[in-house]
Each structure stands twice: as C-alpha cells, then as structure tokens.
C-alpha cells in the first residue's frame, strides 16, 4: 500500500529531485492536491530582468481587449504564451511541515510530488511602447484659455486623466510614458495630465516674445521669476507660465536660492511660428519665408532646415509650395507610418523621407531593416539618389 499512498514516505519535493544523490532513487507521484491549478503560471525571463521582479518593479498592463504586456520601469515586453506537447511535471519544494526524514526511514523511498502538468510557459519579447493612444486621450479635452480663466470651482473631470489613469490605459513603461508626455508637451494641471490648446499655446508664446521686447530682456538670459511674474500679470496661471518656459526654453542655470535662468530655444520657437503661419493651408515658399522671417524674434534666425519633419515642399508648375506635414502627427507603428507616408507621396527621396522615419523604433530591427521591410528602394543609376516607394 505504500506505493499507492507515497506521501507516507518521506516527502522531499523539488530539492529531492534536484539534489538526488548518485546511485539512489526517488519516487515521483501526483501531489495530494494535484489538479489543473490555473492560478499557477510560468514565466520565462532573462536573468537581467530577475532583479526587477525581485524588487517588485514589474507590472502587467493592458485593457481586457488587448494582449497583456509586461513593463519594467523603463521597458515594455509583449507576453507570449508558448505551448508544449511534452508533459511538463511541475514539482514544488516540499512543505516544511512534512519534511524531516530521518535516516532510519531509509527503506521508505523519498517522494517528490507533482502539483500540476503545465501546458506551456509565457515568454517575453521586447516591443515598442504603445503610446499613440496617449495623444488621442489627451486631445479629447485640451486645456484652453477659457478653462484657465474660468473661476468654477468644481469642473467636470470627465475625459481627463491622472497619472494612474494613464498607467491603467496605456501599454508602456513608466519611463516611456513620461517620455511620451514630454514629447506631447503635456503638463500636469490640478492632478490631471493635459495638453494645451494650440491657440492658447500661441497666445502665451506671443505674449512671452512681446514681453521680451517690451522689457528689453536678452533671449539668452531669461530670469524665471521675472518671466513668470510678468506672464501672471498678463493673465496666465503660474503653472502655465512655467510650462511655457519648459516648452520653448532651455534652462541654462539652475537657481539655488535665486531665480533659475533660461534661454529661448531657437529651433522650437521658429518651428512653432512656422506651424502657426502654415496652419491656414499651403503657401508659396517665397511668401512663407517672408512671413516667417518677419515673425521670428530678433537674435534668432529662421532656417528652412529647422522644418525637417514638419513641412513638405511640392512643385506645382514653376512654383514651389510648402505645407504642414508633421512627423508628430503620424502613428508610431512602422506599418501604419509607412502606409500614410506613401499615401502622401508615392516616391520619396532619402533626404525627405529620413525625418519622417528616424524616430521609428522597433526592438530587434535596425533602421535599414525597417526600410527593407516596408519600402522598395530604386536607384536608376549608380550616381543618382535612391528613391523609396511602397512595397
């Protein structure tokens, strides 16, 4: 009867299986609690990710209709279930309670018990974060001038998102999410992450440029306290004034005890002004350049190369026209990105295409690999520029 109820023998568990001595045997049996145990799962992962799990810095993220991803503080991994047709017998360590075999019981065989037969294992594949949804969520209700000046105490919070709400809805690591918020120039207002309405953003930048002229400030040495004070007097909330500095300026000197110093970022300011001009539609290049140069503040020079990835030029007859086509408005998944690019223009020269594809990131695929996968490259002669078209 011993063999029918092997647990009566000495229970050894996983230690017994892994530490089995030469010239000895142990019995492998079904555990007294053997069953499907669907709450037990196996996850294979790289040794280097193990400390992240041990220090509880790992989460699974996803909506019920999405495939789950696993996020470390900085990276995102797809979780794939890999099934097996082998019988994988899972043996837990022995219960501390039933341990303690004494040598006198040597005639009874040590037993290791199988708790379940596992159907497979989850594996991780590094993926690009899915942050396109972030823009979609935050664009529902951009922060407007009207909202900033309204005195209503309890505003409706529908369609607004706190950090935790975003973490719940987006499949991206914390670091990737913060980067996504930064690239959208989002700002936290009353606990909610918001993007500012374009008109409002124009208004505050115009005001800042205006104040710089009025007060005869140097665009390379802007005193934070002064700027914020003046913008506040102009009717902009303090946090929005600070946000404006962060979006259009770079900090040159961290103030300790005194006010921080900032300088206007030439490229960001010029690009913003160009976008504002072209918002109405396409324009002859000469007209555009003229308007643009006039808008740019003294001490800065507008340079057409700044507009890489922001505008495209097309020839209509003898004339060149420019129009807005911003890389930040394009999806971040390569297939969708290339599909829109080739709809916009069936053939691309490398110098035009490069600004629209350089921020595509696919783990495990180089940028050459991306081009090979999604484009057809033609080069009529060895000297001519290569041209890329859809595959």
């Amino acid at each position: 009867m011993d063999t029918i109820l092997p647990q009566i023998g000495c229970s050894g568990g996983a230690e017994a299986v892994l530490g089995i001595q030469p010239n000895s045997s142990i019995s492998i049996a079904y555990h007294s609690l053997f069953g499907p145990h669907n709450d037990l799962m196996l996850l294979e992962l790289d040794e280097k990710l193990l400390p992240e799990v041990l220090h509880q810095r790992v989460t699974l993220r996803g909506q019920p209709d999405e495939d789950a991803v696993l996020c470390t503080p900085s990276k995102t991994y797809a979780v794939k279930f890999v099934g097996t047709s082998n019988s994988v017998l899972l043996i837990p360590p022995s219960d501390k309670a039933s341990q303690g075999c004494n040598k006198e019981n040597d005639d009874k065989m040590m037993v290791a018990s199988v708790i379940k037969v596992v159907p497979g294992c989850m594996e991780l594949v590094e993926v690009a974060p899915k942050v396109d949804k972030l823009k979609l969520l935050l664009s529902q209700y951009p922060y407007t001038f009207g909202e900033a000046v309204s005195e209503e105490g309890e505003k409706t919070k529908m369609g607004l998102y706190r950090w935790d709400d975003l973490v719940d809805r987006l499949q991206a690591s914390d670091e990737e999410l913060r980067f996504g918020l930064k690239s959208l120039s989002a700002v936290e207002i009353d606990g909610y992450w918001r993007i500012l309405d374009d008109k409002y953003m124009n208004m505050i930048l115009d005001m800042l440029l205006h104040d710089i002229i009025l007060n005869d400030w140097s665009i390379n040495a802007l005193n934070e306290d002064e700027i914020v004070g003046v913008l506040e007097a102009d009717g902009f909330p303090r946090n929005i004034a600070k946000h404006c500095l962060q979006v259009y300026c770079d900090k040159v000197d961290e103030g300790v005890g005194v006010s921080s110093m900032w300088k206007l970022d030439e490229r960001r300011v010029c690009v913003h002004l160009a976008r504002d001009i072209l918002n109405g539609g396409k324009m002859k290049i000469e007209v555009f350049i003229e308007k643009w140069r006039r808008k740019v503040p003294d001490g800065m020079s507008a340079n057409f190369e700044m507009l890489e990835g922001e505008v495209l030029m097309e020839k209509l007859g003898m004339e060149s026209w420019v129009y807005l086509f911003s890389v930040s408005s394009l999806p971040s998944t390569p297939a969708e990105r290339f599909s829109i690019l080739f709809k916009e223009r069936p053939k691309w020269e490398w110098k035009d295409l490069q600004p629209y594809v350089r921020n595509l990131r696919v783990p495990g695929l180089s940028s050459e690999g991306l081009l090979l996968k999604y484009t057809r490259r033609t080069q009529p002669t060895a000297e001519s520029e290569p041209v890329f078209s859809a595959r």
Partner: protein
Amino acid sequence: MHIQVKCSCGEGNCPEWAIVELQGVVEAQPSFENRLQSLQIGVLCRPSSQESYTFTIGYHELIGTKVSLKKPILVLKKIKLRNEDEEEDGGDVDATRVELDMIGIIRHKILFKTRPKALISSKGAQPSAKEKASASSSKTPH
C-alpha cells in the same frame, strides 16, 4: 488594467521548484483517471555520479539528463484581492483586483527526450500488482 507582480519570497530566498519533462503524455489506467491525487507516477533514479537519470514508469524506462535552463522560469501565482473598503461606483464592474505573486523559480529541469524503452520480464518478476500500484503507462507520439 494594471497588475502588480509581487515577490513574497524576497531576494535570494525564492524557493527553487523543479520540472521533470518527458515527451508525450502520462496516462493513468482508466480506473484511476479521476483520482490521480497521491498516486505514484514512477521512480526517478540517478544510476551514477553523472547527470544522467532514468525514469521508470510502469514497464517503461526513460533515459534523460539534468539541464540547466538558459533563462530562469518564474512560478507566478494569481491572487484575487477583494477591495472591500472601495465601493465601486459602477456597481458590478468586477470588484476584484488581481495580483501576481512570484512564489518560486525554476533553474533546472530533468529532461527525458528519448522514446521509452520497454523493460522486459527481469523486473517483470514483480507481478502486475506493481503496474497497478504505479498505475501509469507512458505513451509517446510517433
């Protein structure tokens, strides 16, 4: 949704679990099919000091080796938490939160990838009682 992966065992203390892996399926005799609990599957033997093992299931013997896994495998347990103090405004939106707890780690398995060898009567001297006791036979696909 956002599921925290916890680790209740702490660094360096995660108990090691084991895997015994074989091709095909272990099938119990029909009379045992629904009450496998505590039933013996077979005997695992390490006949020498080498990392070579035999696994005897009924009249079949498998030969295998101990393999160190290239990547560790975590054993995770799904835990349902009920938030009692948190009244869901939605009402029947399922009020259970889920956590995953890392309860063990697997670094080695004993892998039997050969087809079973039939053990003929030398051990068959122990009569059919043994077969019934172990109540298992192995079946290998093709």
